């Protein structure tokens, strides 16, 4: 679709079965049981006994392909603590992802923005993802765009739910202001150093973080019969 990525950048480096855990870490996705989302009822299909292991995208190996090597090299040169700051480099489907240690996020962003060989001027998107069932389940994901070189990279910071602190990048990219508020609102990721980290889409007095995977959903009571339609995550459905 986008023709700026040369063929072979990613995709071919995926294992035969991407659902299998990679060799290097505990995986980023939860272990899943069953197929229809029911347990203990009359599921005679046998699908209830299925177990799908945790999944992860394995770390990429050199050469990454395309401009990815150039970007990683320039970043390693421009940011002295690169070796400790970047925990993993992923190349998947023609996209480069750098998994970062949170304390280096702001420094790396400043380098990515200002280094003449990198020039990621635009922070396109900040979003949260909740990988329930993994130790560092809350991910803060940044998509940076270099208008000078027409490149995109993704930064990802993972934090445990008991200590959901991520430094705010608003000092480097002011556009992250509302987006970090949204990620806080929906996932409870606390962005330290944000000028006013308050709820933005949900009401100010809302309890809980609605887009976390363990946030309870509401069912619908059925009139007259005393029954309820269960919430969508408890209904019988293919997973």
């Amino acid at each position, binding site marked *: *679709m*986008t*023709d*700026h990525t040369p063929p072979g950048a990613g*995709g071919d480096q995926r294992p035969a079965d*991407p*659902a299998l855990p990679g060799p290097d870490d505990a995986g980023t*996705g*939860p272990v*899943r049981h069953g197929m229809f989302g029911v347990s203990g009822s009359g599921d005679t299909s046998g699908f209830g006994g299925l177990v*799908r292991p945790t*999944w992860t*995208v394995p770390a990429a190996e050199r050469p990454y392909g395309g401009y990815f090597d150039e970007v990683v090299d320039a970043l390693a040169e421009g940011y002295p603590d690169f070796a400790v700051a970047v925990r993993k480099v992923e190349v*998947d*489907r*023609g*996209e480069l*992802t750098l998994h970062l240690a949170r304390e280096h996020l702001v420094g790396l962003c400043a380098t990515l923005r200002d280094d003449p060989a990198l020039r990621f*001027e*635009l*922070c*396109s*998107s900040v*979003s*949260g*993802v*909740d990988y329930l069932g993994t130790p560092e389940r809350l991910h803060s*994901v940044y*998509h940076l*765009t270099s*208008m000078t070189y*027409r490149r*995109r990279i*993704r930064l990802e910071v993972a934090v445990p739910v008991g200590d959901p602190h991520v430094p705010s990048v608003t000092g480097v*990219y*002011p*556009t*992250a*202001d*509302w*987006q970090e508020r*949204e990620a806080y609102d*929906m996932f409870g990721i606390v962005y330290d150093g944000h000028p006013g980290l308050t*709820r*933005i*889409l*949900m*009401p100010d007095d809302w309890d809980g973080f*609605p*887009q976390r995977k363990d946030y309870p*959903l509401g069912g619908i009571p059925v009139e007259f019969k005393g029954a309820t339609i269960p919430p*969508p*995550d408890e209904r019988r459905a*293919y*997973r």
Partner: protein
Amino acid sequence: MSTADGYAASRDTQEGRVYTVTGGDWDDLLASDPISEERMVVNLGPQHPSTHGVLRLVVEIEGETVTNTRLVIGYLHTGIEKNAEFRNWTQGTTFVTRADYLAPLFSETAYCLGVEKLLGITAPRRAQVIRTMLMEVNRVSSHWVALATGGMELGALTGMTNGFRARERCLDVLELVTGLRMNHAFVRPGGLAQDLPEEAPAAIATWCDEMEKEVAGLDRLLTGQPIWIRRLKDVGYLDTAGCLALGVTGPLLRATGLPWDLRKTEPYGVYDEIDFDVVTHPDCDSWARYLVRLDEMRESVRIVRQCLDLLEPGPVMVDDPKIGWPAQLSLGSDGMGNSLEHVRKIMGQSMEALIHHFKLVTEGFRVPVGQVYTAVESPRGELGCHVVSDGGTRPFRVHLREPSFINLQSAPVLCEGGLIADLIAAVASIDPVMGGVDR
């Protein structure tokens, strides 16, 4: 001031005296209790015609000068991203289409490009051409609303009536093709919901002629109009550096003279085969944005004409029975439709087709593990879609990078230091759509 009409009377609070003014009663207020201080905090919205939907602006003014602006959003939050996690991949398109309701085909396409990238498939060529063409029709219709509501807010009511009249023609075309005027859910992972109806190319060609006339008409009506010029020129200034810092893209960025357009810089669909210009203007103000939108409509009509020439017969859904939803259904009045021929085939002739149909509709398809970010150039800027899959039949996470949401952050920068009357012009020039802002 008055309590007879159901509004609360003025009252004392810790912050000072609070007045309720409902319009037409400023004289009463000033006669009874002249405001000693010039500094006032004024609330605009959330229900106010000049705030473009349910947007609330809290404005601190000193005399008529805006000194501080804060935006309150979330009134239209419907949990689109959360909802999409509990339906299958194909149904996801019916959620994202409801985000930016003035440009639904762009959200659908961004989402479907993401799903297709995760699946490792590409929609057939005819589907790409139709997507490109419909997106441009949609861009014109969205820009009509931007100009019409912007005109209304500044008192140019003929601009509004003309704009909505022209938009109606765009919606007629979209209704003819997709069955629905808005929230089409027409672009699906792997292609399109249906092929073009037979009469569509002729109708779209007529539409192109009509739009050229309508755009020329609005141009004649407003561009030389002294009041229109003076309301917009030098209002809401934001230069390239400001746009990049605030993440502002789309017509606002192009109105600073930077020709950044994803249709050119990262072509998707068939944009790389089409000859069109990126419209820019160097002035950085609301006037420049008006001119950019006006000329972009002309470029869009140019693109649509070329897409009509690129149309060749072919499938509109990937040839993979495990992914491609049946796309040969006829169109019903509700945009869904059924096809006697298709039903006869799957019920009477092909058991495999019946099984695939049943499995696709009840279970959906599985998408391999991973995450992607795909972006398209919506009428408001970079519309990105961050899609994460855990290998299941439902999206694990869908995040829309909505240009309305991001661009609206620039409102305080555009307004502060200006007059309160210019605040309306500045917010209108951002063209925020609250469905997209709040999702």
